[in-house]
């Protein structure tokens, strides 16, 4: 297990290195790097000073190394718009995004997997058809439009839930959390649901496809022949067998959920990272863009690492094979 972890960590570092190159190429090389570092209204003298300080007259690979060096020291520069270090800006908003994302994934899994398993267990039944129809709409309807409709129905027409913001928060472990207060929870419901719907539909489809296939297989037939109840077959055999693809997809989808939070946060004025990146793109606040992309890549890499470890914990074949290798 330790060896596996070690190997994965080296892989993760490699991926991060590649990602940082891409981000460097994407933002620094395509755009004018000076614009990234100083405001457009800076004087000629400041300009020359910055070029010299950041070595922008050096060859590209030297520049990249310098960029990497600053990254490793947590120096992402200052935001043009807010005038504060970018890293602080991001760290303050990260918890809000994580809170939203994790709530969405929790909803998607706890609701989606049972529904999907049912749809795969009784594929022809009216309830299963209804679930599948809903899931087709769920993967088809763009997140942003669902968000609008949720606001329209629950905030504008019914007036049950607030249309935006985080509501009252509680300070725990040095950061603010919404889900610990009733008001905060009320503010969290709509955005979390909005962000969850696509993943929910995806979980339904995956769980259904897996269940459908496994129900036809010999494992289920053998378990039934031994007298296991349908519930035991689903609970102990089917769920265990579909868990691996579900975890894989969930890991991959976590990244895209964080990304889609950009959309949800914009619609619901949720003060997280997504809102920050949208603002930074429209105001050309490039240091914020760079920092966001690098940190998001880091987050994805970490999640992939966790998924791999979860794999090993879930699949006995992998566990023994890897520790033996």
């Amino acid at each position, binding site marked *: 297990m330790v060896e596996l972890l070690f190997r994965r960590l080296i892989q993760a570092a490699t*991926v991060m290195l*590649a*990602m940082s190159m891409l981000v460097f190429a*994407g*933002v620094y090389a*395509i*755009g004018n790097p000076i614009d990234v570092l100083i405001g457009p209204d800076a004087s000629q003298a400041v300009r020359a000073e910055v070029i010299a300080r950041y070595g922008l007259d050096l060859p590209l690979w030297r520049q990249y190394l310098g960029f990497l060096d600053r990254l490793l020291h947590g120096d992402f520069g200052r935001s043009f718009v807010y005038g504060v270090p970018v890293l602080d800006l991001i760290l303050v908003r990260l918890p809000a995004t994580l809170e939203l994302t994790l709530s969405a994934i929790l909803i998607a899994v706890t609701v989606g997997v049972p529904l999907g398993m049912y749809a795969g267990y009784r594929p022809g039944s009216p309830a299963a058809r209804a679930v599948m129809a809903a899931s*087709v*709409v769920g*993967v*088809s*309807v*763009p*997140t*942003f*439009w669902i968000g*609008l*409709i949720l*606001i*329209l129905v629950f*905030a*504008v027409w019914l007036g049950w839930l607030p*249309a935006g913001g985080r509501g009252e928060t509680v300070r725990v472990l040095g950061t603010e959390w919404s889900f610990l207060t009733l008001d905060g929870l009320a503010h969290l419901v709509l955005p979390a649901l909005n962000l969850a719907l696509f993943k929910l539909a995806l979980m339904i489809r995956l769980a259904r496809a897996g269940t*459908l*296939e496994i129900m036809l297989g010999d494992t289920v037939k053998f378990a039934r022949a031994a007298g296991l109840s349908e519930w035991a077959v689903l609970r102990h055999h089917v769920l265990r067998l579909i868990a691996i693809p579900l975890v894989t997809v969930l890991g*991959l989808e976590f*990244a*895209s959920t*964080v*990304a*889609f939070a*950009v*959309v949800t946060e*914009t*619609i619901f004025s949720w003060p997280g990272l997504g809102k920050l990146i*949208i603002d930074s*793109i*429209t105001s050309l606040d490039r240091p914020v*863009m760079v920092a966001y*992309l690098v940190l*998001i*890549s880091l987050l*994805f890499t970490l999640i*992939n690492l966790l998924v791999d470890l979860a794999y090993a914990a879930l699949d006995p074949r992998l566990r023994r094979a890897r520790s033996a290798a």
Partner: protein
Amino acid sequence: MTPEAVPQVTTHETPLRRFAGEFRENRVALAALAVVAGIVLLAVLAPLVAPQDPYDLAALSLRDARRPPGFVGSGGYTHWLGTDAQGRDLVSAMLYGLRISLEMGLLAGGLALAIGTAAGVTAAALGGRIGGAMMRLVDLQLSFPAILLAFVLSAVLGQGKLQLVAALVAAQYAYVARTAHGAAAAERHKDYVAAALSTPLSGARVLWRHILPNALPPVIVVASVQVASAISLEATLSFLGVGLPPTEPSLGTLIANGFQYMLSGRYWISVFPGLALVVLVTAVNIVGDQIRDQLNPRLRR
């Protein structure tokens, strides 16, 4: 298709005809196909069927702005779905918006398919280190959410149709490449390809005649999903303001324009274009699902 690539058929039916026959048995899918065809037709014929040219600013009157569905405007005809903030007839704006959304979806989806298939099949045919490295790159990109990539690219490249298509293609080709590579690599390891490679046939010929035709079915399945998600992604980007310029309003732009009026209860400006988008994307996905189920041999009995 070359004669060799056509599978042996023992019944009198051609595979295509049997495919169509099975498709027809699913009424929902058939209805979805009809909806897609209807929407495409409406979008193509937009200049003929729309009651108003939404780009003709002279024809707009602010007196007609933000009127609810059923309002009879200064043009003397009924705005069945209401008007937007500029006094545009929403039906007309939607028809033209559909045109642009479809255009972007087909263009970006089609290009992503072509580039992805080419990349995937080439990597599979090359194999070894180079093919492996190509796919490593694709995998790396796949671990990065497509929407974020499209988002950053369209922000970096600036607004415009071509820039947006480029962003969408860059965000989507990797998925196709993975699919095509999977199928092509499986084919490459079969004995007959190895046998063909050992004959004087050129590598390109083997690639073209044997590997590509066998890699196509899964790619076809992905195709409809790609077009649907390109349309959806385009709408999302335009909604966030980094997609198409306001001079070329797609459905996403229309929805974005209406968002600010929603809280005051003028729902129609956002809701109806959104419904059109949802119906279109859902119908394409249903058709795609049916094709996938029919092509998936594991679900066949």
